[in-house]
């Protein structure tokens, strides 16, 4: 691990998904000369590219045909017609979707900026699907009361990611591709840079900057069945937590209703947005029982719970009864080929079923991380529940918790969040740097600690395999901290996570080399999973209510009196997290809490 140097940039952005790419592009556009982006995989491999269904914005390009009901056909809005959708409606849907845990100022900002951001994507070359008169096409999505999911067939994330990356290149951003961030350097609540490993050589470098942004994505990999990429190991949240930054609302994990059976690979919500049905073993559209109005297009938390209930009560499909049918057959060949070509291929490739002719077996899959690194609306990371800043440290996208999704995210709102807040972070960082921010001195050699950590890991002989520990973690998180939770199961999860953390300390890395050591990286990622999982479990165990995606069978009701507040978790040495609470930002006149019914 020789040949290490200190690298200096004005701005270091960790993560090259939509959040990181937007932040980099905008900071550079705003005149910051020296912007560098680190990504542990090539930027275009970032998980944003896997998003399928759409990005929300109330553009008012299409509307339901009058008199055809909530699932009827859509038409383009004729010129001069009354708008069918509005920013206010998008705000309300998001607040309701969040089960009132979302911060309302942040939500208003997101829904307002949404319109600009989607037009900006279009102007920057994003290839959207189109209406007949050439506007951006829109479809329905769960929990949204108007068709406002702007899309490119079912590869929306792919075209957004390529567009954002291309434009960042155009503005001269420097990319460190396949560099792995190991640590965040914070002293006296001032951020001074990061420590990163160059995957190709194995060298570990201190990287100093005036400002650092984490856009490191979600943490779905802590669960057994997940739609998330291998890369979604919540590195950023674990690194921040270890560096003394709090994590917020980590107990809120979204399970998506339609992961391919056994694989967890996503069949986009667009399947249901375009009119698909969910059926149980008796071929009943069981959503009639749970959300008679919105049916399959109820929000994800509700649909996943309904599926799980059908499964638990013996009405699941496939040999082990753990599946549910997704029925697209009635949409017809033409619509499936035009609107859902990718999900069709996925069904053929992974479960051997062509949705044009047959039912597709699916099951709920861990999908989205509502919790993360707490920030204000300009992506400035906060150090505690009072909102004091960690100077020079920003976060955006799925790694952050600003919080626009509260207890449950609506589909298409996260590509939006990553873009809107990535962009806002770009402006905020540019202002901070151009306003005279300085490189801050370092105490000691932060890279030395990481070299020691890696040396120690590589030095372990014997011991268990990392993968076996990771699998046990995923199993307990799924079984005991999954869709339905209760005190006994959560206590079990807590015991398990703590025991696995201890066992990990002697787990062995097989590859001892420096060059492109992905075995070492997998071990570090497993350590990260173990680190933040304790926060998920502790938050879930303490929160004695059911809200959004957090569903306690022993406390089945939402409890606004005691729990209308964000969980803020600080690392407390070896004792696990120290929890405190932060008020939700609510406009009591405009959007007071209501019962959430669909």
């Amino acid at each position: 691990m020789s040949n290490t140097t200190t690298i200096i940039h004005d701005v270091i952005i960790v993560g090259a998904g939509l959040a990181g790419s937007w932040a980099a592009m905008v900071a550079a556009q705003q005149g910051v000369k020296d912007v560098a982006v680190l990504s542990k995989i090539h930027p275009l491999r970032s998980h944003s590219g896997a998003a399928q269904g759409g990005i929300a914005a109330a553009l008012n390009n299409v509307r339901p045909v009058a008199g055809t009901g909530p699932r009827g056909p859509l038409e383009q809005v004729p010129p001069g017609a009354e708008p069918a959708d509005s920013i206010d409606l998008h705000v309300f849907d998001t607040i309701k979707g969040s089960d009132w845990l979302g911060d309302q100022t942040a939500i208003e900002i997101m829904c307002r900026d949404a319109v600009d951001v989607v037009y900006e994507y279009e102007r920057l070359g994003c290839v959207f699907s189109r209406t007949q008169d050439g506007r951006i096409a829109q479809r329905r999505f769960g929990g949204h009361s108007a068709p406002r999911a702007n899309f490119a067939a079912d590869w929306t994330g792919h075209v957004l990611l390529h567009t954002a990356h291309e434009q960042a290149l155009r503005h001269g951003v420097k990319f460190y591709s396949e560099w792995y961030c190991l640590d965040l350097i914070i002293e006296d609540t001032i951020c001074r840079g990061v420590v990163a490993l160059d995957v190709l050589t194995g060298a570990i470098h201190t990287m100093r900057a005036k400002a650092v942004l984490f856009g490191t994505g979600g943490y779905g990999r802590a669960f057994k069945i997940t739609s998330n990429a291998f890369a979604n190991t919540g590195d950023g949240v674990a690194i921040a937590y270890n560096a003394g930054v709090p994590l917020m609302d980590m107990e809120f994990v979204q399970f998506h209703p339609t992961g391919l059976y056994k694989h967890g690979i996503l069949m986009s919500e667009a399947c249901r947005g375009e009119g698909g049905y969910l059926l149980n073993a008796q071929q009943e559209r069981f959503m009639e029982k749970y959300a008679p109005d919105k049916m399959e297009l109820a929000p994800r938390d509700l649909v996943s719970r309904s599926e799980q209930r059908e499964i638990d009560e013996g009405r699941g499909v496939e040999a082990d009864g753990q599946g549910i049918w997704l029925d697209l057959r009635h949409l017809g060949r033409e619509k499936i080929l035009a609107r859902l070509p990718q999900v069709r291929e996925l069904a053929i490739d992974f479960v051997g079923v062509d949705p044009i002719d047959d039912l597709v077996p699916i099951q709920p899959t861990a999908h989205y991380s509502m919790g993360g690194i707490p920030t204000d609306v300009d992506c400035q990371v906060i150090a505690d529940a009072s909102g004091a800043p960690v100077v020079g440290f920003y976060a955006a996208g799925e790694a952050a918790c600003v919080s626009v999704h509260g207890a449950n995210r609506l589909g298409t709102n996260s590509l939006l969040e990553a873009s809107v807040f990535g962009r806002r972070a770009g402006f905020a960082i540019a202002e901070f740097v151009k306003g005279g921010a300085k490189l801050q001195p370092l105490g000691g050699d932060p890279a030395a600690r990481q070299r020691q950590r890696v040396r120690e890991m590589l030095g372990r002989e014997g011991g268990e395999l990392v993968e076996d520990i990771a699998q046990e973690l995923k199993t307990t998180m799924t079984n005991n901290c999954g869709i339905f939770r209760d005190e006994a199961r959560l206590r079990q999860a807590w015991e398990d996570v703590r025991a696995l953390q201890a066992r990990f300390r002697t787990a062995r890395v097989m590859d001892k080399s420096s060059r492109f050591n992905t075995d070492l990286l997998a071990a570090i990622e497993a350590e990260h999973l173990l680190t933040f999982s304790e926060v998920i479990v502790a938050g879930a165990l303490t929160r004695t209510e059911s809200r959004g995606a957090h569903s306690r069978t022993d406390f089945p009701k939402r409890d606004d009196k005691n729990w209308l507040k964000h969980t803020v978790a600080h690392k407390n040495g070896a004792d696990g997290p120290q929890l405190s609470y932060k008020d939700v930002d609510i406009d009591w006149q405009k959007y007071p809490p209501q019962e959430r019914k669909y």
Partner: protein
Amino acid sequence: MSDNGKHTNVIVRIQRFNPDNDQKPRMQDFQIELKPGTTILDALQEIKTHQDGSVTYRKSCRHAICGSCAMNVNGKNELVCKTPLRERLDKNGVCTVRPLPYLPIIKDLVVDRTAFWEQYLRVKPWLAPPPTVQTDREYRVSQEEVAAIRNAETCIMCGACYSACQVIALNKKYIGPHALLKAFLRVLDPRDAIPGERLADLDGSDGVYRCHTIFNCIDACPKGLNPTEAIETLRKLAQRRLKVEEERLERQKTITEPIA
């Protein structure tokens, strides 16, 4: 190999090479149990996590959209995440995995894509926006115009085509099918302001005329795209470059207006 499903053991033969220690690449056999639904990536994961952690490859999304895991399987480039192992076993129950050919090897199945990304940059993959700046609405693009670039829009830059191309094998200066496909996307996009400049660049000796239409790229593409056809279109457009420029200027006059 027996066909009764459950406990069939098969061999995954992997090309190994760490330039820090090895003189030249060698093949190594790993035995694994073939379970229903196992993809080649699943098999590599099983080997890496339980047998030999030093087996090295790239991966991420595991559903054919991130472009990380293109490799050479039994002589053909493909994405290992979406390829069932069962379909790639020879009659002895062996599946052979090598890195993408014609590229320097970093370690085992990981190749150095520097030249690949340089060519991507060379074609200026970004849109050069039109002079008429539209700030409060989208530009209008017809469904036909979108359909015309669908062939390029879904390219995931996995490199399967690039490393199957016989021209690339001999000449790394050739822009290559991946970057030409991107150029095609930009040239055909009615919003792009510099199709003429792009076509002039592609017209050079490293560009569209280097393609020998051997069609390897089409065979290799895991997304079913057709770079050869895109290159042929670019060739034709390059011949009438000035006309293309003119037409684009004309089209952009109405780019903010509804499609009739």
